[in-house]
C-alpha cells in the first residue's frame, strides 16, 4: 500500500472523491488558485492567486504564497474543516472555536492535489487516532465481537480504502469503518459504498458492515438502520504518550482480558 496519492487537473467529481477519501486522515496538499477570506479577531481578504494549501489531519490549516517563510493565513490544530463544491468552486472552511475564527478559501482551480500518509514514529497527537484504534482492534479483536478475525488494514478497493477488512466466526466478510469522533452521515455513506462493492463481489448475505466509533449522529443512526449496517461503540485510546505502537524494543503489552 502506498502512502502518497495524487491527482492532477482533476474534474470536480474526482476532486470531490479525492477530498472525501483523504481529508482528516492524511495530509492534504493542494496547489490551487484561490481567494481567501478571514474573519475572527480581525478581518482580511486575500485576492485571487496561486497558493500552496496544507491541511493536516489534526486540523492545522496553512496557506502559503511563493515567497517568504510564514504562511499568509493559517488555523491551529483542533480547527474543524468543512468543504463543499459549489458552482465549480471548491470551498474550504476552517473553523476555530476559541476564539472564534473562520478561514474561508474559495478555490477556482486545483492544479494538483496530493494526499500524504505521514508516518510518525514519535506520537505527537493529543488524542487517539483511527490508526491507534485499528491497532487496538488487531491486538484484541474481541473488542469488536467474539470470533472476529481482522485480516487487512487500509484495504484498497476502487471506491476507497477500507479501514479494517476481516471475517466473523461464521466466515462472513466484515468491513469496519473506524471513526475517532462521533460518526456522521458521511461515515455511513462511506461504509455503505464499501459494503456494496463487496456484496457485488461475494453475494448479499456474506457481507457485514460495522461502523466503529464513540457515537453516532441521529442522522447517521437512521441511515445505518435503513441500510442494515451495524454499529459498535469504541473509544479511541486516550493520550498520545500512551502510544502502544511506540515499542521500538521487543516488549509488547498484554491485554487484561486474558486474566478476567
Amino acid at each position: 500500500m502506498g502512502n502518497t496519492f495524487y491527482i492532477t487537473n482533476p474534474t470536480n467529481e474526482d476532486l470531490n472523491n479525492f477530498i472525501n477519501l483523504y481529508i482528516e486522515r492524511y495530509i492534504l496538499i493542494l496547489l490551487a488558485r484561490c481567494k481567501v477570506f478571514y474573519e475572527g479577531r480581525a478581518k482580511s481578504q486575500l485576492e485571487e492567486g496561486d497558493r500552496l494549501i496544507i491541511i493536516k489531519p489534526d486540523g492545522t490549516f496553512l496557506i502559503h504564497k511563493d515567497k517568504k517563510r510564514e504562511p499568509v493565513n493559517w488555523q491551529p490544530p483542533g480547527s474543524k474543516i468543512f468543504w463543499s463544491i459549489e458552482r465549480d468552486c471548491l470551498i474550504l472552511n476552517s473553523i476555530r472555536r476559541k476564539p472564534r475564527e473562520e478561514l474561508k478559501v474559495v478555490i477556482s482551480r486545483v492544479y494538483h492535489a496530493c494526499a500524504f500518509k505521514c508516518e510518525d514514529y514519535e506520537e505527537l497527537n493529543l488524542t487517539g487516532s483511527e490508526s491507534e484504534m485499528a491497532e487496538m482492534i488487531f491486538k484484541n479483536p474481541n473488542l469488536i465481537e467474539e470470533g472476529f478475525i481482522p485480516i487487512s488494514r487500509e484495504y484498497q478497493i476502487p471506491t476507497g480504502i477500507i479501514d479494517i477488512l476481516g471475517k466473523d466466526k461464521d466466515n462472513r466478510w466484515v468491513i469496519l469503518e473506524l471513526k475517532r469522533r462521533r460518526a456522521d452521515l458521511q461515515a455511513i455513506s462511506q461504509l455503505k459504498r464499501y459494503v456494496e462493492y463487496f456484496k457485488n463481489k461475494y453475494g448479499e448475505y456474506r457481507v457485514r458492515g460495522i461502523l466503529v466509533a464513540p457515537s453516532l449522529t441521529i442522522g447517521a443512526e437512521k441511515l445505518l438502520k435503513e441500510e442494515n449496517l451495524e454499529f459498535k461503540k469504541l473509544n479511541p485510546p486516550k493520550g498520545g504518550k500512551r502510544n502502544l505502537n511506540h515499542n521500538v524494543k521487543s516488549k509488547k503489552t498484554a491485554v487484561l482480558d486474558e486474566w478476567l
Partner: protein
Amino acid sequence: MESAKEFKKVVDTVSTLLDEICFEVDEEGIKASAMDPSHVALVSLEIPKLAFEEYEADNHDIGIDLEAFKKVMNRAKSKDKLILELDEERNKLNVIFENTGKRKFSLALLDLSASSVKVPDIEYPNVIMIKGDAFKEALKDASLFSDYVVLKADENKFVVHAKGDLNENEAIFEKDCSAIISLEVKEEAKSAFNLDYLIDMVKGVSSGDIIKIYLGNDMPVKLEYSIAGVNLTFLLAPRIEG
C-alpha cells in the same frame, strides 16, 4: 463528604485512564469499575457509605463524563465540603461545594450501563506495602530514561528498575528501610509495565498514603490505596516479550 479537594484527587486519577464511568450506587455505598479503551488497565473504586458524613441512597446507576467531572472538581477550594445529589427528574448529578456559600454544578448523566468488569480474583505470591511518595518518586526517576519499568521483589527487597538505550536507574527498597511497611515475598518475581500508566495510577497519592502492591511473574500488577475514604484498586497488564 468532608473534603471536596481530597475527592478531586480521586477524580483526577481516574480521569487519566477513563473518559466516562458508571457509578453503581446502593444503600451501602458507591462502586465503579472499568477498563480503559485499550484493555490494558482496570480501575475500580469503592466508596463505603461511612466515607460520607451523610449518606442517603437507593439503587441507581449513574453515568458520568469524567472530563466534565474533573473540570468541576478542579473548582473545589480548600475548605469546601462536597455534596453529591442525584436529580432524577432532570437526569443530572448535582455536584455541590459548600463553604461560605453553596456552589452547584449540574452534570448531565450519560446513558451507561454498569460495568461487567470486576477486579479478578488473582492469587499473588507477593504483597508489598510501601509509602506512597517513595514509590511515586521511584517511578518519576524511572521515567527519565525509559517508557517502561521493571518491578522486582525478592525476600529482602523491592526494586523499581528502568533501563533506557544508554542510561538506567534503580530504586532499591530494602526490607527494613523506612519506606517499606511490609514485604511478603513467597516467590521471587519480576514483571515489566508501561510507566505512563503506572504514573497516572498513583497520581492521587499524597505523602502519608500507603500503597499496597501485588506482584507476580508476568502477571498484571495490582495497586491499592485510599484517598478520602475512597478505596482505589488498579490493575495493569504486564509487558511481555513480543
